[in-house]
């Protein structure tokens, strides 16, 4: 197992040959094979094999510190932003390696979007600008009508349009927490990702906002593959088709204990540790 040198490969090159506004884009599948991660010399993840099928919602569950967030961050090359981080293994999007392949890292991240735990709309931008931020950051020119369409369609997909259609000129942070998180989802959707990674997107939100986000997830799962990290068992059951249970023994790297259809993981787990975890006996 050789670790990948992430610093040398095309950090800033980018190609703009993918039409971002192409409505015919399809959700893509992600395949992780034998992924291992290190922070410095500490190995935090080992032997992860996971298939995330196109158009499906995959939930990653497990106690804190078991490496599920780290794994999520390897899926769109955010892991390497930590200076000491390295990894090994292979991650394919529709069969193309995202680390060794020909896709520039900026394109990888555009095709595999991410929503973070804390809502983080750009403070210096308005609601509308936040939605369009991805285009601006990729240096893409758009016409006014394209922009208007994109703002409306993305905010609608994120279930926010009706609440903010008269507030598009307000600063992004003037919205409530739940609205901000949905704004972040709309922002991610604006660059037409094929996969959307969500790192505990509801952990900072109230139950009503959580319900709205879950609704959004089930709606967008038709157009993007969703991978979601969650600590909430009910949420995993409500939103996901498949589920992967991560666990790390003390001073050992985390690994996947069990993976399969959500129904089986919760009602008929094969491993006793999974059974204990999903029934709330630890973690």
């Amino acid at each position, binding site marked *: 197992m050789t670790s990948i040198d992430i610093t040398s490969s095309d950090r800033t090159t980018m190609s703009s040959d993918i039409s971002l506004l192409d409505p015919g884009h399809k959700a893509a599948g992600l395949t992780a094979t034998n992924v291992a991660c290190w922070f410095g010399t500490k190995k935090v993840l080992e032997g992860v094999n996971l298939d995330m099928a196109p158009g499906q919602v995959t939930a990653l569950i497990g106690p804190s510190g078991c490496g599920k967030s780290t794994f999520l961050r390897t899926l769109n090359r955010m892991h390497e932003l930590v200076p000491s981080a390295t990894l090994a293994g292979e991650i394919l999007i529709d069969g193309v390696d995202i680390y060794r392949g020909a896709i520039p890292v900026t394109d990888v991240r555009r095709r595999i979007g991410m929503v*973070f735990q804390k809502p*983080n709309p750009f403070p210096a931008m308005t609601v509308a600008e936040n939605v*369009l*931020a991805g285009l601006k950051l990729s240096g893409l020119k758009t016409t006014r009508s394209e922009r208007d369409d994109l703002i409306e369609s993305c905010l609608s997909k994120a279930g926010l349009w009706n609440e903010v259609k008269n507030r598009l000129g307000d600063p992004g942070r003037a919205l409530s927490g739940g609205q901000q998180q949905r704004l972040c989802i709309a*922002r991610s959707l604006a660059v037409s990702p094929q996969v959307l990674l969500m790192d505990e997107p509801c952990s900072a939100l109230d139950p009503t906002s959580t319900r709205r986000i879950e609704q959004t997830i089930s709606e967008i799962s038709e157009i993007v593959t969703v991978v979601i990290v969650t600590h909430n068992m009910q949420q995993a059951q409500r939103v996901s088709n498949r589920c992967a249970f991560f666990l790390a023994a003390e001073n050992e790297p985390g690994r996947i204990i069990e993976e399969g259809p959500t129904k089986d993981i919760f009602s008929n787990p094969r491993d006793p540790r999974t059974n204990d975890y999903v029934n709330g006996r630890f973690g």
Partner: protein
Amino acid sequence: MTTTLNTTLNNTTENKINTEERIKIRDIEMVDVIVMTGSAISAFALSYFFFQILLPVSGALGFLVCWYVFFNIISTVAVWELRGAVKAKDHLARVFIWTGGMAAVVPLILVLGYVIGKGYHSLRPQFFTQDQKYVGALSKSTEGGGAHAIVGTLEQVGIASLISVPLGITTAVYLNEVKGRLTKPLRMIIDAMSAVPSIVAGLFIYAAWILALGNQQSGIAGSLALAVLFLPTVTRTSEVVLRLVPGGLREASLALGGTEWRTTSRVVLPTAKSGLVTAVILGVARVIGETAPLILTVGGAFVMNSNPLSGKQDALPYFVFRLIRFPQEAQVQRAWTGALVLVILVLVLFVIARAIGGRGPDHISRLKKRRLKRKGLA
């Protein structure tokens, strides 16, 4: 029907508010006032007795110190008797902290008051319009004579900012966003640079720009000397401001497929904008009063020279430095007025910095609103 209902409702709430008696949480009790006044009076009497009658010394400062010490002792004992040890210690600490705060503010007010008192007399419009071509040492100070120095200062500081601000912010971006191998040595150099005595900055430019390269003393030489002092200040403060931008925003930008450059230019810098502007203005306010680096570099002049590139120029602090030692009263007067103008310039810069710094990153300026409207985004 509904209106009457509403009015009755309003009336009842109003009545309720009026009848409700609020607890007075922050009121000062009469006893405390009496204790403090009593302590102050008895401390005054005691120190008068000791200082004026018993001891063979006198003087206002000694009396005040004596009074302060006695007041602390008496009031602490009184509070101790009245409310116990904990309250007494609390009282003593409060008095010390008050004294500390006052001790810091009083000299500032004294300096300001002194400069205003000395300088306001000659602060006439002519001071800003006349140089000393026709107004000389023998003419009245109210006839002005500071225009050349004001123009010189504004030009020198302006050019110094043009050099230092882009360089400083770029360096701060390197230190905080790019983080290369040179980060540590660079930060050390910047630290060392900010400790350079200002006269050394002037000497350096004198040796390098004037002696070695054979240039004359001029405004630009002064600007370079000021830039040497300005650069580390603006770099360090900008770096601190950039560090305050949450890392989550950078991650969000990169996760959208942004390059590092666009992340910095479109997300990090706009978010830190108000802080950066404040940093720059405070830096300007600091170098605008520097005298030492200018003594060797600008040369000093009595007439207007608005060309910073050639010929000797004057600067406000240098103007003050020279004129205060003139035998003629009018020139000394002008020096004080120059000092006052300098103080006013700094004050204006501080007020602007406070106004901009108080705005959050999500403040949308009128200019930006107009731009958004044009794009159809508002």
